[in-house]
């Protein structure tokens, strides 16, 4: 376990970065609220999987990456790809199965990739539905990076449920043996669909999974954004130094059902209330004011900006056309015309993170 250093990595965050963190968390929530609205309007195709209550950990962990690092999100890690610059419109388009989406309507929600050539932009690897597979795949991204002499770090996420898969085990162990630059955020959000963590694992803390692999691990309060950032940054730094993978357990709570159709009857009200009181965004907001990083006015302004942006982007995506059925068989193997792309955007804070060359954003947030 990495020793807790006296100075925390987050101590080095600039004011803009602190505000940007807040903005990203808000934007994540606003996008999802907008999606929930679209879902109720029957405009979302298929299910909607929310990260309500977990936005903080997805955002803060990914924020520890350099701009050109690689991240792979699961359905509940919208925040991490927003941090890496995926344009919200792409997310809306995905959920509405639009032809303009990063998969041109071929796959759902966060199931898309962005893999720029060379070192000029963030790498986003989309999941497949099968839980666990992203761990070996992201280990492979780390392996590939090492072979290509790129000092990037690969970060991915796994739920409490996902840690029970064989793929998780094989990927973690391989990364450990090969000392790959991989950071795995293991989210104890109390449930896997309806299954409580106690029926998923017989260990008190999710990060203990890492003991089997001999890699550093620590457990953090997942609803404390700066704590998540600190642990993630330490792990990212270790990985970048060639010290191999780490696992960070985050203690958090899934505040909605598995998907919107799930009424969560199996979750007790007191449990939800307790976590409601620990909402990561509310807490971070209060912290920003307490520490005088921002005034109430500053934050209200950011909130308004975020909400408006989410709304605008949703509107754009809504107006987008569906995919052309004539293209359905194209691009199964090389040689087709299917060449989707995702727009990478900069937040209004235009903050630079990490050491790599930075992105040329095609669009800047409003």
């Amino acid at each position, binding site marked *: 376990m990495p020793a807790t250093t006296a100075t925390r990595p987050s101590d080095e965050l600039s004011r803009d970065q602190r505000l940007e963190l807040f903005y990203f968390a808000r934007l994540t929530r606003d996008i999802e609220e907008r999606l929930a609205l679209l879902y109720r309007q029957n405009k979302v195709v298929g299910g909607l999987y929310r990260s309500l209550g977990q936005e903080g950990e997805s955002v803060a962990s990914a924020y520890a990456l350099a701009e050109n690092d690689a991240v792979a999100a699961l359905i509940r890690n919208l925040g991490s790809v927003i941090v890496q610059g995926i344009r919200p419109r792409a997310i809306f388009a995905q959920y509405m*199965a639009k032809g303009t989406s990063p998969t041109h309507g*071929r796959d*759902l929600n966060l199931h898309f990739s962005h893999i720029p050539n060379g070192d000029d932009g963030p790498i986003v690897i989309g999941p497949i539905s099968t*839980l666990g597979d992203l761990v070996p795949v992201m280990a492979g991204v780390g392996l590939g990076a090492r072979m290509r002499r790129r000092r990037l770090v690969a970060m991915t996420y796994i739920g409490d449920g996902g840690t029970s898969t064989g793929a998780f085990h094989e990927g973690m162990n391989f990364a450990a043996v090969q000392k790959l630059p991989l950071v795995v955020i293991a989210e104890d959000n109390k449930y896997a669909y309806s299954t409580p963590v106690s029926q998923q694992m017989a260990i008190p803390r999710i990060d203990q999974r890492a003991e089997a692999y001999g890699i550093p691990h620590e457990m953090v309060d997942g609803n404390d954004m700066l704590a998540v950032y600190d642990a993630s940054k330490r792990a990212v730094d270790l990985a970048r130094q060639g010290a191999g993978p780490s696992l960070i357990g985050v203690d958090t709570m899934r505040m909605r059902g598995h998907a919107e159709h799930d009424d969560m009857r199996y979750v007790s009200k007191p449990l939800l209330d307790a976590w409601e009181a620990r909402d990561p965004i509310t807490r971070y907001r209060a912290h920003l004011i307490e520490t005088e990083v921002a005034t109430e006015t500053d934050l209200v302004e950011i909130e308004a900006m975020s909400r408006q942006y989410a709304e605008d982007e949703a509107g754009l995506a809504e107006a987008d056309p*569906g995919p052309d059925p004539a293209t359905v068989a194209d691009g199964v193997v090389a040689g087709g015309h299917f060449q989707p792309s995702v727009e990478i955007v900069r937040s209004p804070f235009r903050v630079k993170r990490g050491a790599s060359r930075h992105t040329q954003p095609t669009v800047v947030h409003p």
Partner: protein
Amino acid sequence: MAKTTYLEAIRQGLAEEMASDDRVYAIGEDIGLYGGAFKVTEGLLNRFGAERVIDTPVSETAIIGAAIGSAYLGMRPVAELQFIDFVACCFNILTNFAAKSRYRWGAGVPLVVRGPCGGGVSGGPFHSANPEAHFLHTPGLKIVEPSTAYDAKGLIKAAIRDDDPVLFLEHKLLYRRVQDEVPEEDYVVPLGQAVVRRPGDDVTIVTFGAMTHTALDAANQLAERDVAIEVIDLRTLSPLDYETILQSVAKTNKVIVLHEAQRTGGIGAEIAAAIAERGFEHLDAPPVRLASLDTPVPYSPALEAAFRPSVEQIVAAVEHLVEY
């Protein structure tokens, strides 16, 4: 008799077998308190308790492995895969351990692996699989897919009573859309028997699952044009009921094999090849396969509609055959 949904029929069949045979138990992800992602096992936990309705970690290989081991001790497990697509995660232990056990040692594994299959609901590339062809090639493993509520109940009961592993495919499009009369009394639909859903002299359509209904829709349209389609619903996909198929082809002399999985290497290949090999003299036209495109299952409704076989395609294929 009451009208019962396909889903309710499966639940009934499972519950009845659990009630009448205490070796039968259910195991899977979220099947207990939650009642399963599609609620097929709803109520079973209350009725049979947590020892016989086991919620597992997200571990398909452990689910099937544990089921196999318990079967060696005399139990009759019914394992649910949340979506049948995840059978890919236990492909090894199912095809290598369960299916080969009897042949190697004489130890049968009376295991049912059930789960929702099929598309048409915008499930995308990982929640729409029709995996029968991946398992047809596995001696020792049976495959079943009902198209009606009556069959769903009779087949799940037969599958549970069977002494060998059975992959039980439940088409999710049918769960709540199909309902029919299901008797109260105990009955089974024996494995290995196809059924003629609609008799006809002109062209045979061999199909199963949700496509049975699509074929019947096409047959209705064609009847208006005086073309008489015989629709065969296979029900059991392994072993195949070649007899019923060949009998029909001997009568109609023209055949379409229709399925929802992708075309190449699909179960339609086996059926068409068998017809060509064993019914050659009866064929007045090439055996035609209609299936989905050779792509992953696309998510958008417009794309998926272009991907799956449609009534229009069936009608066109029949017309082509009639004129042949």
